[in-house]
């Protein structure tokens, strides 16, 4: 096991940030912590990166205890905090050089690891980090977190505030890093990114709702789910909420995801009901659940 978390709890005054969290991450696994803002993701990362003590429970990273062996952990993990935390007034190259030096290594020594990423920002290596675009900053931060060839990489919301193209590129980079046997723990509030992980933990209000592969989590969704659309989205949602057999309704792009209380769902009946509410262009079709649906169901 690369990361073992056992019954970790942490409170800030009267806020319970983490409650009895347990999970394991295998070597070389890309593990996602998925949850909304304030779910406790950053607190968990800070505990695992030895920046914060847990109130209860134990955790090990690469076999080292986060409390007693923190020195070894600091040598062998890479950490990318949620906020861009490099020196804005140093250049791209100087930042990288700085982190290489304090880890007692050189850029040349581990260049092959960061090469794929670094070549993209190398044309700007003399530019100050503060003057880079959001996506470039992200790439630089990843390079700095990788420069000492860590065994485990902690990425706290690495794609928050990054454009969709850069986000996609970033996840491709993570997939490539995984090939090099680096364990990656990544947190994100974006459900679409969850599907790219090997396994995910859904977390809310400091509690883990479920841990499994994205495919399995989706399969766990208990009910058939329907895409419903009509000419007036707002009215449609209000009408569905007033429907006597409703189980759940969430807007989902151009559709509404609807589930029914009954075991036997009757589409014709629903259509008639909606028509009675003066809605037109009504379409009802069965669809597959997404991670977001599962999350909403679990978080209910």
């Amino acid at each position: 096991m690369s990361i073992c978390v056992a019954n970790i709890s942490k409170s800030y005054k009267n806020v319970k940030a983490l409650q009895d969290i347990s999970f394991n991450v295998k070597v070389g696994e890309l593990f996602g912590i998925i949850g909304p803002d304030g779910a406790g993701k950053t607190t968990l990362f800070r505990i695992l990166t030895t920046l914060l003590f847990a109130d209860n429970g134990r955790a090990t990273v690469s076999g080292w205890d986060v409390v007693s062996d923190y020195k070894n952990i600091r040598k062998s993990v890479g950490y990318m905090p949620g906020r861009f935390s490099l020196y804005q007034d140093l250049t791209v190259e100087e930042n990288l050089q700085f982190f290489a030096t304090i880890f007692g290594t050189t850029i040349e020594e581990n260049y092959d690891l960061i090469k794929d990423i670094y070549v993209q920002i190398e044309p700007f290596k003399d530019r100050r980090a503060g003057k880079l675009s959001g996506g470039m900053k992200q790439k630089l931060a990843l390079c700095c977190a990788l420069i000492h060839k860590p065994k485990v990489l902690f990425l706290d919301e690495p794609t928050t505030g990054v454009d969709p193209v850069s986000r996609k590129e970033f996840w491709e980079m993570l997939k490539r890093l995984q090939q090099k046997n680096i364990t990656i723990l990544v947190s994100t509030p974006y459900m679409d990114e969850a599907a790219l992980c090997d396994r995910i933990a859904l977390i809310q209000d400091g509690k883990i709702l479920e841990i499994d592969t994205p495919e399995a989590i989706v399969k766990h969704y208990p009910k058939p789910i329907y895409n419903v659309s009509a000419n007036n989205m707002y009215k449609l949602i209000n009408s569905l909420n007033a429907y006597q057999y409703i189980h759940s309704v969430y807007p989902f792009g151009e559709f509404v995801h609807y589930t029914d209380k009954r075991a036997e769902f009757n589409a014709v009946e629903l259509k008639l009901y909606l028509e009675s509410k003066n809605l037109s262009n009504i379409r009802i079709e069965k669809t597959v659940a997404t991670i977001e649906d599962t999350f909403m169901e679990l978080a209910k």
Partner: protein
Amino acid sequence: MGNVMKTILYIIQKEFKQIFRNKGMLPIIFVMPILQLVILSNAATFEVKNIKFGFIDKDHTSTSRALVEKFNASTYFDVLTDFSSEALASASMLKGEVDVLLNIPQYFERDFQKDKYNTLGVTINAIDGAAAGLENVYITQIVQRFNQNLKVDLMQITDQQVQAINIETIPLFWYNETLNYKTFMVPGILVLLVTMITLFLSGMNIVREKEIGTLEQINVTPIKKSQFIIGKLFPFWVIGMGLLTVGLILAKVIFNVPMIGSLPLMYLYTSVYILVVLGIGLFISNFVDTQQQAMFISWFFMVIFILMSGLFTPIESMPKWAQTITEFNPIKYFVEVMRMVMLKGSRFNDILPQLSKTALYAFVMNGLAVWSYKKTD
């Protein structure tokens, strides 16, 4: 070991790069102190000059004119106005046009000859108490000297022989013979500048890493706190020593302040002293989250340190409890040492008490700072 040194050196290098890239920082470090030294040393003098002097001469005799002439001859007084009445004179003082009024009564010369005694009216604007006190001393000196001459001129020889023997004091101002205030102030202001700049910079520096989040990233690296702190603070130690050098050169070139004592001794003391300031800066930065807070707290200490340093008000005239507090004021020791070494030529043994207290202070302060730095981990 080699690796440790390499890391520290790299942090120092990085720190210098950042300082020199900060366009706002450079003028603060080098231009501001120089300007302050030049301006403050010229302005912050205790001498009272160009006193606006007015008089009412109701006597109009050669004696009264001679007295006014004495004031005119003095470099301290600018004789401005001859008022015709007391009412006019008072109105003028109310407007702030005169600082000192001399009222020479009618029959001044006649009565003096007759009674061998007379009185003069002196009115001083005492809004500034310190200046008024000095003005009084100047006036008394001039009148006394005038008195002596007058006795000789107006009295008979027999009278003089009966006169009691005068005791005259001749003050000698050692180590600053001409009582030149610049000689006295320049070392003091130099001390303030070195302290202020190093305290503010070091106090704000580590907080800056907190603010921009790099400290969090640094904490998840194998770097040791001590390496990091040394690497971060050493540049400010160098800047402090650099400021001392610039200040000493200015003191010599612009103000021609005598430098009797040994320069290496000054540098030795300063090198220990800056450690105290850096320790205080680090200590402050451990308890705050933003540079703004660090700045305010640094200012708070700075103001107390300056006002209780003996630079502007003598420590001897402070109440007992305040004197006890000054024992914990590092600036006090620095001011003492700089003045002792520069003006008096004190040697190592003379400044040993101050040096050892400062060294102890540096040790305690840095110990506290490092301890609290670890605690906030």
